[in-house]
């Protein structure tokens, strides 16, 4: 353990920035979950596996088709999103109106199958994916060396998060979507194809997970369990933020990244549990989450 006074402000800033980077990932992943829960009322436990598939999609594109990072940033989410829509159409749609627990079990099962298949073919240690040439290297900020690629992930994820929030909360499409969630029957009466809207929304949420996967590929090893390790934390983020709250998941994701970064400095042993401690505290004080509306 490092004593409190031993921390220089430089180290503190560095850890805060690293926390922000991780927070950006949390935000992007929990955003997808929040969209899916908010619109479909499904607790999507397959999210981690789909995030992993996004990273593997980028790897496939590079190794089998020589398609680099930038096109993969678009193609992988589209491909994986399409797979997500197939999952929604063939399986999840049958669970409409049933208790949450069924959706949870189904998506959890799907996650296990996907991860098992990938592990069978690719092993546990995974595959390397290089940082794109344009973003190689880094900048010395004085208090830390910031790799260009990490800076890019933070800016890009925050941009995507805000765009999503805007699309859902401030545009006409978003208002139709919210109406479809609130009262599907009435929305149908207005001539909106609600089932198609729901399928597209699930596909979009899955696409966000895959996008996070592509962003993660150059940082982490691309390996079958990369999502399984992350998904529990991301769920905690969603619960703290308030299930289904779009802005809640974005802000909470970034905040928890920062808190985790600080914990790594002051008491590293607790870095893995601090998120859950906060979750317990939040549930005790505000059961609906920080940004959630009371049920």
């Amino acid at each position, binding site marked *: 353990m*490092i004593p409190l006074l031993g921390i220089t402000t*430089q*180290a503190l800033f*560095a*850890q805060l920035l*690293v*926390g922000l*980077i*991780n927070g950006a990932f949390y935000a992007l992943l929990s955003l997808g979950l929040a969209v899916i829960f908010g619109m479909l009322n499904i607790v999507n436990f397959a999210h981690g596996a789909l995030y992993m598939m996004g990273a593997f999609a980028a790897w496939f594109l590079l190794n089998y088709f020589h398609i680099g990072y930038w096109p993969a940033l678009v193609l992988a989410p589209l491909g994986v999103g399409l797979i997500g829509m197939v999952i929604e159409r063939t399986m999840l749609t049958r669970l409409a109106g049933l208790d949450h627990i069924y959706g949870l079990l189904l998506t959890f099962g799907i996650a296990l199958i996907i991860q098992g298949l990938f*592990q*069978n*073919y*690719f*092993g*546990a*240690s*995974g*595959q*390397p994916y*290089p*940082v794109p040439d344009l973003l190689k*290297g*880094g900048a010395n900020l004085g208090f*830390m*060396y910031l*790799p260009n*690629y*990490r800076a890019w992930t933070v800016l890009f994820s925050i941009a995507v998060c805000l765009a999503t929030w805007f699309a859902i909360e401030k545009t006409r499409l978003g208002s139709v979507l919210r109406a479809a969630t609130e009262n599907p029957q009435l929305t149908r009466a207005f001539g909106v194809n609600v089932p198609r809207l729901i399928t597209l929304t699930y596909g979009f949420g899955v696409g966000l997970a895959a996008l996070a996967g592509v962003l993660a590929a*150059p*940082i*982490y*090893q691309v*390996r079958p*369990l*990369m999502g399984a*390790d*992350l998904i529990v934390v991301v769920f905690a983020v969603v619960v703290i933020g308030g299930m289904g709250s779009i802005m809640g998941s974005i802000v909470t994701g970034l905040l928890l990244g920062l808190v985790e*970064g600080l914990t*790594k*400095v002051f008491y*590293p*042993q607790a*870095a*893995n549990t601090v998120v859950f401690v906060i979750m317990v505290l939040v549930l005790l004080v505000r059961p609906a989450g920080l940004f959630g509306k009371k049920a």
Partner: protein
Amino acid sequence: MKHLVAGAALGLMLTGAAFAQEKVVNVGVLTDMSGPYADVGGAGSTVAAQMAIDDSGLIAKGWKINLISADHQNKVDVGSNLAREWIDQGKADVILDSLNSGVALAVNQIVKEKNKVFLVSGAASSDLTGKSCSPNTIHWTYDTFSQANGTGKALTKAGGDSWYFITADYAFGKALERDTTAVVKATGGKVLGDVMAPLNNADFSSQLLQAQASKAKVIGLANAGADTANAIKQAAEFGITQGGQNLAALLMFITDVHALGLQAAQGLDFTTAYYWDLNDKTRDFGNRFAQKMKNGAKPSMVQAGVYSALIHYLKAVEALGPTGDGAAIVSTMKSMPTEDEAMGKGYIRQDGRKIHPMYLLQVKKPSESKYPWDYAKVVLTLPGEEAFRPLAQSECPLVKK
């Protein structure tokens, strides 16, 4: 009279059981099948065990050998329960691999209690032949001392006289850091600090930044498997080596090099008991193994060690005849020199340490690699007597001083 009949019946049953036990060996491979170490051991450890059974020739001599395997999930309770269940239900006379020091230290106790045999290949903690040594356990392939003594000493001698550790936060990482610290200090270096990271940690940027700020010449990675791969990959991202600091992968396996790719791993030193491309025999074993693997992977030293250990165990069992006495088998194993295709010649010390040469390898540059899995070149061969902790320093109660 009644008692006599009951006694006779009981006697018959016991001899019946003894008959059933005859010429049967139950082998259990307890390993990480799904976690960060699954490529180092995992299904490959079971493949290696099956190869040893096939190569031993015991089946042709009328022995029946059963092989089971299971995933301990890197959880001490899961591993302990499996070991206990296997032994209690007669499914395992010998337990192999146990790729996780936490699990291995627990299973070590259970096997000793039940007088079976424990052949550790994957777990690293040198405590298994130190203060936790057991008459039923042989530590086969490598340990934290041999890793420290190989990679740690070489880097310190090459001018890396100040160290900072990034350590896996459990029994293994702590043992590896402790043993490396001792070697670094003995070689004239100093340790500036350390930071813990949990097992299966994806993001090492926080730890790497602290290591970078320490200005230590060498950053020692006291972790393994996917953790090492992630740490090395991210160290490149943060410009650690460009800044003049060296990375020391204190425990790196060939499967990690494969996962990282030569571009990221080039120039790293690592210490190993087995490398497939050492000589004709190791190549032959490596190729046979790779053919049985779904992904065509060459064996890691852990998998080679499972093979080597089981070959020797089966030799001892054949020499001794059927017995349920694990300690007797282990002492027979200690009395015989070891020899097999994968790890060559060696012997087993009284503290349960298997002795053989260790190789300090360096990962090749991408341009030097001529064929698949051509990943490393030998820098130094350490004779067994130098590679492992001398008996004089042993804390093992089995060692008579």
